[in-house]
């Protein structure tokens, strides 16, 4: 059994997992699906407490059977996942096929630890939009690992709504290998869990591969949300763009760690990282750690970070036009998040995220 990482590790400096370590989780119990199981009118794959539910899932022709896990990395959470993974989706899209969009729902309940292992492979020229919703009720731990392989000129749009129970733990590891000309565009909305971390490892493996790793974290109460990325440019002419926005109220704590590694061979790399946080209360806290490791001499890499409050001049301008104060603030928060949502081109996904943001604001 692999131990949980501690804050002594640089990669875990801002996120303390002791509260998770103090929990004792049960084996996942079989549960029935709630009546309001998310549905976007798309092909749907449903996991109930970590197990695939054929009953609630629709036929998706590119679904394959689950194969045992052999973990090659030394990442502690991926190793723990490997020790326990019993299920997960395996999707494989054949060359040149546009598979449309599919919804993956992870519904949890109770005090279980859930370690699904998902594998998404797009052959050359294939396309897929994967929309994930993680939600539930109880003090569970959801620790999914998603391995993504994009072959030449494939395109995966990956939209994640993390809307776990406010009493739950969520630690997701997403690893993507992108071949020449392929693109991985992702957006994550972080709303749920008492403690969450989304950790992306993206490898730009071929000429001209590109990725978007965008996120919006909307946290309140004593929630802790960590968004960590490592983009490794191992080939020339790659592009990586990250726009991560956090809106923090009450005593919420947000973390962004972003590392861009550019190998000597990866000339003409275009790396961009923007992190902005809006603090809605004096007790909210944001930690930002950008890192650039560049070994090539002809690259364009930039990063920027801002932390601030809502601009009261802007609030007054809106109110002076008759817009009530709460609506004025909501409008400015939506505007703040706009840039992060840009990669979301799928209309259903976009509407889903906008509704989730609206709901978050109304509950404030």
């Amino acid at each position, binding site marked *: 059994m692999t131990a949980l990482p501690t804050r002594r590790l640089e990669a875990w400096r801002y996120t303390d997992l002791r509260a998770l370590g103090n929990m004792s989780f049960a084996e996942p119990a079989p549960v029935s699906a709630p009546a309001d199981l998310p549905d976007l009118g798309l092909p749907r794959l449903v996991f109930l407490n970590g197990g695939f539910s054929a009953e609630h899932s629709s036929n998706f022709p590119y679904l394959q059977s689950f194969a045992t896990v052999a973990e090659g990395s030394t990442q502690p959470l991926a190793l723990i996942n490997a020790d326990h993974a019993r299920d997960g989706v395996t999707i494989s899209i054949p060359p040149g096929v546009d598979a449309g969009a599919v919804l993956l729902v992870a519904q949890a309940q109770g005090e279980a630890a859930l370690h699904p292992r998902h594998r998404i492979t797009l052959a050359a020229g294939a396309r897929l939009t994967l929309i994930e919703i993680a939600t539930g009720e109880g003090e569970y731990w959801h620790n999914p690992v998603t391995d993504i392989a994009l072959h030449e000129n494939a395109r995966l749009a990956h939209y994640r709504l993390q809307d776990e129970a406010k009493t739950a733990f969520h630690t997701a590891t997403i690893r993507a290998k992108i071949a020449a000309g392929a693109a991985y565009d992702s957006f994550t909305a972080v709303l749920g869990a008492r403690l969450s971390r989304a950790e992306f490892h993206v490898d730009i493996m071929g000429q001209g591969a590109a990725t978007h790793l965008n996120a919006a974290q909307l946290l309140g109460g004593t929630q802790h949300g960590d968004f960590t990325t490592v983009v490794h440019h191992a080939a020339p002419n790659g592009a990586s763009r990250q726009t991560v926005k956090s809106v923090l109220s009450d005593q919420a704590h947000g973390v962004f760690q972003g590392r861009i590694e550019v190998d000597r061979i990866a000339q003409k790399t275009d790396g961009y990282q923007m992190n902005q946080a809006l603090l809605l209360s004096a007790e909210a806290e944001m930690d930002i750690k950008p890192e650039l490791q560049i070994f090539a001499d002809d690259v364009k890499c930039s990063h920027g970070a801002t932390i601030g409050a809502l601009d009261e001049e802007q609030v007054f301008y*809106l109110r*002076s036009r008759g817009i009530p104060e709460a609506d004025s603030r909501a409008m400015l928060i939506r505007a703040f998040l706009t840039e992060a949502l840009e990669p979301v081109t799928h209309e259903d996904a976009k509407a889903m995220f906008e509704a989730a943001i609206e709901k978050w604001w109304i509950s404030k």
Partner: protein
Amino acid sequence: MLEIKNLSASIDDKEILRGVNLTVPDGEIHAIMGPNGAGKSTLSYVLSGRAGYEVTGGEVIFNGQDLLAMEPEARAAAGVFLAFQYPVELPGVGNANFIRTALNAVKRARGEKELDAVAFLKLARAAIKSLSMQDDMLKRNVNVGFSGGEKKRNEVLQMALLQPSLAILDETDSGLDIDALKIVADGVNALRSPRFSALVITHYQRLLDYIVPDAVHVLAAGRIVRSGGKELALELEAHGYAGLEAA
């Protein structure tokens, strides 16, 4: 319409307005002129409800209501409109969405029917045309990347659509070329009616060639020190504000 009685206000314990008395009857346009630092902008902000100004005395009655007790959005719903000296940029907020949200908020507060996107665009395009403005003004983010003149025109566009009963123009003429100045003036003149009043705050007489006021007041050191007809503006232009502050 508007009665300002013995109004005093301060910022950070510094007294800026020291007993302003001013009445603007229905249907009249009054100009407030005065040197820099006289309290002209403070007056406009106190009337529109900006935070940070402490009213230390006096009152403001607007159509029978205690204006100073109202939130800024309630003042807008009641018919007060402030054209900002420095209109605020709102990155990520589309201008059409902004103006429609404002218009519908005001309509809701007044118990009127709200406009859908189609009806709003029709109305907004007509207003843009009558004000000789560029069509793309609605598509851009609010004031982002606008020139100084475009920002002021956008204020006038909002005013034309919100149809206030009292417009306060805070140095709307500053930084405008003559064409833009005429557009601003046309926007105000188009609203002239027995139920529309305006307070035109300006440092220069030039704007008053195009918006002809019913009365001119001189604000100096936080008080109205002189009032007169439109000819007072010409006199000030010729002789300056020197000597008035002591009055």
